[in-house]
């Protein structure tokens, strides 16, 4: 009995320290539309700045990972193509460090506007973002004036937590490419994140309908 209790305890602790489970893109895309839709509807995000962004990351952090051994988030990354439209989605996860979580909580939505092409590529490479290197701050809300410094930042970050806006503590986290989800979605086992963010990877016809809602929101 004692032994069983020990096993259960270890299993429970291991479960709590696991990173958030990676979702597939068929679910991540509607999740991202739900997240971004709220930011836009409630004027929490500045759409003028979205128009200038070279990339966008939409993430959700849920579960016990927050506050117990770092954070884990599931989400997608889009890059802006030369013609101004968006590439297909690239599934990512983040872990370690902190992104957007200053106060804490168990369900946080995060939108990160990537203002430079080089920064988009770093995300697509699955880079590590040290807190010292990230010149990230909260982005301006809808209706607020956008100045040149905001466009010149690496990131503009927006965080939502069950109605409460949180401050941003940004950095010390790793980006991981969810290769499995990308391979499933694009039906190409060897697809890379670079293929997706460079616009080389074509979104399969059957997936386009679901993506269009999000693309419309990003306009």
């Amino acid at each position, binding site marked *: 009995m004692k032994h069983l209790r020990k096993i259960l305890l270890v299993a429970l602790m291991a479960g709590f320290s696991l990173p958030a489970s990676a979702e597939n893109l*068929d*679910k991540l*895309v*509607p*999740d991202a*539309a*739900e997240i971004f*839709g709220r930011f836009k*509807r*409630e004027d929490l995000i500045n759409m003028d700045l979205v128009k200038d962004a070279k990339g966008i990351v939409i993430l959700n952090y849920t579960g016990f990972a927050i506050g117990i051994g770092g954070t884990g988030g599931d989400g997608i990354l889009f890059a802006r193509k030369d013609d101004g439209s968006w590439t297909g989605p690239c599934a990512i996860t983040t872990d370690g460090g902190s992104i957007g979580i200053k106060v804490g909580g168990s369900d946080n939505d995060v939108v990160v506007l990537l203002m430079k092409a080089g920064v988009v590529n770093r995300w697509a490479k699955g880079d590590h973002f040290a807190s010292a290197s990230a010149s990230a701050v909260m982005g301006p809300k809808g209706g607020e004036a956008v100045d040149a410094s905001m466009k010149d930042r690496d990131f503009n970050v927006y965080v939502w937590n069950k109605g409460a806006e949180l401050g941003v503590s940004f950095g010390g986290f790793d980006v991981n490419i969810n290769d499995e989800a990308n391979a499933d979605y694009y*039906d190409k086992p060897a697809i890379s994140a670079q293929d997706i963010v460079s616009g080389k990877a074509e979104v*399969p*016809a*059957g*997936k*386009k*309908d*679901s993506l*269009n*809602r999000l693309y*419309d*929101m990003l306009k």
Partner: protein
Amino acid sequence: MKNKILPLLTALAAFAMMAQAQDSESLNVAADQADSMNKLDGLVGRAQKRLEYILTNLGNLQTGNGAKKAYEEFKDNLEDLKDIRADIKDRVEKVRDLQGVRMAAWTKEVSGMTDKDMRKLTNDQIDKAKADFDTLDKQMREVGGDANDLTALLEDLKKYFDSSYSADSVKTAAPMVEKAKTSGRDMQKSVDALRDTIYKNKKEVKGTSSAQ
């Protein structure tokens, strides 16, 4: 001096009574209604996600990308969508009921006001709140009607595939699948617009509640 203070004190007392009256039933109901609208928005968001999954399932069915799995998922997602829609219907009724209760309480509170300018001011606010809600209600009915049609079409597709599911039957049903996808896409736009209206209404209702 005494002559001037007395009317002033009377006016202040009347205003205090009025404020006390406002800080009562209509305000409490407004807080409940804003909360109910919030829950409605959450349910509608869940329905939108299910519809999005269904659109992807239908797309995968047509392109043959894991078609059998897509068909199974389509059936599950349709069931989920129907369940969520039932919850939405209940929640809409709750929001409507609360609107009725709130307007009745607010109207009753106005009838207790003695100053006619104050009464007019508040009655104008009530009229605006009624008009705003009527707009929302009309939109909810329209979207609800379109959602009934779409759900019926999806249900028919499910019945059709239940009786004969094969690559050929998928091909034969292509026009109906396309119709469902187009309706689904239009539905998402209408629902996004509806959620904008819910949000605006919620904000206004919250503005008249004590739970700010």
